């Protein structure tokens, strides 16, 4: 480095080296191999477990490579390598639970899947021989009801916020409240639905409709947000073009604005459905659990996949192993439904996204 004290004012440095000592390109690989070797050695000779061995190997790599780099390339490069190693380590560490989660659900859930598992209920079943038909149907009915309640309210509210309210006080208040609603803990939504229904039907009420109302509280803000974003993307020129043709505002909205934004809205709604389909807490409180199929959301308890999973684990009764298997099978089915909805949402969004082509 040039010494600042002796450097002449604003004068470029005399020497010019562009090379700078650099580690060979394969240095990280080499270091990783050595580190893995040390780890293996620790496992074989030291007799430590494979987790500890992996940790040792990681430590050797994260300390060793930067030290090597620091000796050859200098401190800045060494710090860059430390950062790179740590960022990739964080990534690797984060992937472990996520991969393990997916793998565990798949491997433990796949075994019990069968026609019977999907078409039988748990009515009168102790131990083996039951199915989750009742829970699948419950989840579908309640989620569908919640969608029917939330989508009109959510979309119309977004229309109000973007097309009519603009920056009025009411619109600002609603925007704020929608923000508040996004943060409502799901169990609180369940408590609300319970408190509301207890008012009409007395304490201890359990019904599917209550679950749908609770889920709607969670779903409406997501739908509003997604629709709002999409409506804002519709260019004003399009609205003005319609007005210039003498089309009334409400027809402009229903015939021009909403159709332009529809793919984005469908995507948003599908993601919202996927999100609430897996909600457990509110259903635990208001929909409860039953062993038989109940397709009537207006009376009695209604089983759903998440609640079924929860009770199979927390209150398995005598048949712990069988109930655990049921829980994993139900978890796999639930994850499959949610993933399917997500993929559908993305495909819909992707197919119609480039609206600006012509």
């Amino acid at each position, binding site marked *: 480095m040039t010494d600042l004290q002796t450097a002449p004012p604003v004068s470029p440095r005399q020497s010019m080296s562009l090379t700078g000592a650099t580690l060979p390109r394969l240095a990280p690989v080499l270091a990783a191999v050595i580190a893995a070797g040390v780890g293996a050695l620790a496992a074989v000779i030291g007799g430590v477990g494979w987790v500890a061995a992996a940790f040792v190997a990681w430590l050797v790599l994260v300390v060793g490579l930067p030290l090597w780099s620091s000796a050859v390339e200098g401190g800045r490069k060494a710090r860059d390598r430390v950062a790179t190693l740590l960022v990739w380590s964080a*990534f690797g560490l984060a992937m472990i*639970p996520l991969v393990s989660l997916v793998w565990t659900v798949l491997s433990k859930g796949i075994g019990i899947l069968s026609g019977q598992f999907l078409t039988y209920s748990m009515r009168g079943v102790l131990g083996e021989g039951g199915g989750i038909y009742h829970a699948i149907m419950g989840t579908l009915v309640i989620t569908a009801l919640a969608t029917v309640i939330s989508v009109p309210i959510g979309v119309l509210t977004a229309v109000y916020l973007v097309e009519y309210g603009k920056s009025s006080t009411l619109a600002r208040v609603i925007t704020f409240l929608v923000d508040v609603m996004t943060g409502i803990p799901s169990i609180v939504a369940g408590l609300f639905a319970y408190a509301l229904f207890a008012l009409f039907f007395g304490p201890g009420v359990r019904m599917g409709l209550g679950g749908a109302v609770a889920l709607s509280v969670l779903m409406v803000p997501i739908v509003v947000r997604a629709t709002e974003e999409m409506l804002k993307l519709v260019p004003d020129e399009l609205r003005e073009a319609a007005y210039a043709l003498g089309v009334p505002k409400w027809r402009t909205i229903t015939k021009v604005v909403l159709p332009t934004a529809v793919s984005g809205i469908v995507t948003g709604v599908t993601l919202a459905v996927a999100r609430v389909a897996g909600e457990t807490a509110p259903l635990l409180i208001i929909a409860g659990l039953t062993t038989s199929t109940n397709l009537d959301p207006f009376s009695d308890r209604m089983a759903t996949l998440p609640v079924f999973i929860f009770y199979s684990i927390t209150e398995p009764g005598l048949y712990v192993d069988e109930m655990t298997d049921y829980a994993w099978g139900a*978890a796999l089915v*639930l994850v499959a439904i949610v993933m399917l909805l997500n993929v559908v949402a993305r495909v819909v969004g992707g197919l119609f996204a480039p609206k600006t082509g012509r």
Partner: protein
Amino acid sequence: MSVTQPPVVDREESTGRFGDLVFAGISRGSAILIMLALAGVAVFLLQQGLPALGHHGDSTYGKDSIWGFVWPLLFGTLLASVIAMLVAAPLAIGVALIISHYAPRPIAKVMGWLIDLLAAIPSVVYGLWGIQFLALNMVPVYQWLEDHAGWIPFFEGPVPNSGRTMFTAGLVLAVMALPIITAICREVFAQTPKMHQEAALALGATRWEMIRLAVFPYARSGMVSAVLLGLGRALGETMAVAMVLAPTLLVSFNLITAEKGSSTIAANIALNFGNASGSKIETLIFSGLVLFVITFAVNFLGRAIAARGRKG
């Protein structure tokens, strides 16, 4: 009749106005409905929860007052969430950096997609994985901590064979919050203006120096709000914790024990609501109200910071 034309025009115009009126009315109506619904949530929770302020004894599960009941749960909620954030925030920032700056473009795209999918996995599945897989596999680690670091209050033990401890609950919450924090951080990192990154590179910055010079300062408020929104999610999360932790009413820093550890508000409601009746329900609803207020405050802070970051 010579004036057949004007009435037609007139009719169309009035239809337009009428339709406009109706449609505007309906959309404003649903906006107001949301307002009423939220007011409803507040009113019902207050009406059902506030009577619990006077409760004690049996209706507060043996505690002297409602605060004696809520405080340990609140403490446990905060403890689990803080553990979750301490674990999840650095990892999420790392993953977001990989996706935005380190990994080759096509791989990064796929990874971003996978992270989004993971954010959609239902919490009950995380809970199931937490109790049946994570908890069991953490037992040796807890054992080691108890043996070697037992003098620290956090790791006093005794370690349960099930591994169902506060630390496990925190880890499950961390895994759940990870995709959410990652998704927001990734967006913010990707939005860092190219010209500032190039300015740093042109000064001879290494990749890490460029990230510190141009990316982090720009993304700071976004990162903070991402962590706060993740925290909001972790605070209100019910099922994962309810499945991992036993319902207790203790204030304890002991992270690796079952009986002497803390529990959380949401989990406690979920586990006790089925068997509760009368005044106990009021007590539980009141604790839900407390949770609502805290989650709201955290989310509000997160959004305020994000909004300020967008402006400044």
